[in-house]
């Protein structure tokens, strides 16, 4: 115990604290990952090194790492070592910042793992979208079921546009709402997740063609990168929805994709992931970023993958 306590104390962990040692190691490891002291691109130090660093036994260390693997922050790869999962690291960093400006969900409150929250200043971001030519020209808009774009869904309905909104978790397919056919007093409710099913028609993936061509895709996000990656809450629904729509030919590479996020959700790094739904424009509470330009210049390998 003497040996353990000294080394662990150096990392700000306390053997006299109430929390079990493995939880303290887990929290320290998480901190080192989030502040990028431990890199994403190389494996974590070896077990003996980490045991030394924290001054804990192999059993304690393994338990901490198993927890983080289960939570999706680390992945243990046979024969290669343990790696940080970059997307999850970005999510966690952004969640910390976002909790300052996020608005609670009617069910999930502030449990950001389960939903994309609305945030202070989202209206300013919406206004940037509404000024763009893609918006003016769009008749049919795909809108993610994210809270941060609820009022933009409302703006689309008020403007008489048609919107296609997936149900939460895609549990009941897609809902199609025609702003030109809704009564003015119903639009506010129709823009919410609680209300949209009272007014819209439900479409399964097979019915999507009936919608015709989608002119614009608008989404919120947990995080976005300056090279146009969308990082969702973890289940990658947008990627799935995009694939479905692409297969059916209602979207293609020329379909503009706009993300609405708070400044604190914009991450200046590249995320290695399957290129599915690449963003074109990011509108935040203070700025408008055209990421297509950045992508052409700085990420030539992405074009190759496409």
């Amino acid at each position, binding site marked *: 115990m003497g040996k353990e306590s000294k080394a662990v104390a150096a990392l700000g962990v306390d053997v006299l604290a109430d929390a079990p040692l493995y939880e303290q190691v887990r929290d320290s490891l998480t901190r080192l990952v989030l502040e990028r002291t431990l890199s994403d691109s190389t494996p974590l130090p070896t077990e003996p090194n980490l045991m030394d660093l924290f001054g804990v036994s192999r059993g304690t260390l393994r338990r901490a790492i198993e927890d983080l693997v289960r939570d999706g922050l680390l992945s243990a790869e046979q024969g290669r070592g343990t790696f940080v999962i970059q997307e999850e690291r970005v999510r966690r960093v952004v969640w910390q910042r976002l909790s300052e400006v996020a608005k609670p969900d*009617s069910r999930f409150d502030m449990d950001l793992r389960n939903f994309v929250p609305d945030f202070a200043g989202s209206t300013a971001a919406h206004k940037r979208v509404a000024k763009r030519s893609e918006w003016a020209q769009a008749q049919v808009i795909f809108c993610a079921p994210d809270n941060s774009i609820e009022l933009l869904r409302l703006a689309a309905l008020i403007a008489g546009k048609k919107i296609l909104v997936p149900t939460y*978790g895609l549990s009941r397919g897609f809902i199609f709402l025609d702003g030109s056919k809704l009564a003015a007093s119903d639009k*506010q*409710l129709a823009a919410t*997740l*609680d209300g949209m099913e009272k007014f819209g028609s439900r479409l399964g993936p097979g019915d999507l063609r009936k919608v015709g061509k989608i002119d614009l895709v608008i989404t919120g996000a947990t995080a976005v990168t300056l090279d146009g990656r969308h990082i969702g809450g973890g289940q990658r629904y947008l990627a799935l929805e995009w694939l479905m729509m692409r297969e059916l030919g209602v979207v293609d590479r020329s379909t503009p994709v706009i993300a609405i996020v708070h400044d604190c959700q914009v991450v200046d790094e590249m995320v290695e992931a399957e290129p599915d739904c690449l963003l074109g424009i990011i509108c935040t509470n203070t700025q408008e970023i055209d990421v297509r330009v950045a992508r052409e210049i700085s990420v030539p390998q992405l074009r190759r993958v496409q």
Partner: protein
Amino acid sequence: MSMALTTEQYREQIWAELAKVARPDSRFHWDFSSFICDFEGSEKCSDQLLELAAITDRGRRQIFVTPDNCLEDLRYKLIQRGIPFVMTTYGIVRGFYRLDPAMIPVGDHRYAATLDGFDRYAKQLSLRQLQETEKFSLLVTGGSAVSKNGVRFGKGHGYFDFEWAVLSELGLTDSSSVVADVVHDCQFVNEVMPAEKHDVVVDWVITPTQKIHIDQSSRQHGRVFWEMVPGTEFAGLSIVAELRDIQNLGLL
């Protein structure tokens, strides 16, 4: 002749029936363990509720409604009639809110009745602010299942029992407070069930086709059983900390 089933068996049986008439939740889909669902005919329940003296008697009218989906239509009709009410947020996470229909534009009545819209217009009330208001004449909840003697059981009833306990500790309920449970007919069990000490037995069971009155004149005054709180979802609630605070300061 029917053998009484266990509460587990009742719940399974009821959920199977309920699935035929239920309306899914916008987030939880058909996961009845996460929410109290709306069902076909809930509009008829609200119409019956609106006839209760606890609502029609304007002299002493203070209404509490749970955030259950089957009460959305009731909330809408209360708003339309200009009747304010108090509600908790889902899971009591952010405590109690009061919705004053006078603050809501006419076009947004239906919106304000949903959980998504409620937040926009309702005002949060601390327990201290709640204490300044009148006693509750009517408390309405939904639930998984309810017995002939007014005992609610199955998933979900814990929250309302706790809300009742907190409001009672604050002195906001008394023997004239009326408790109504809105359920579908398939959630009503024609058996006598034993009540636990923290269960709130209900005065009315309102279904789309029935309005059943149950005599609860011997109902105990509600209270928080503090020894039961640790380790539950209630332990971390801000209202629990506030209630302890109030009690420690002897403000009750």
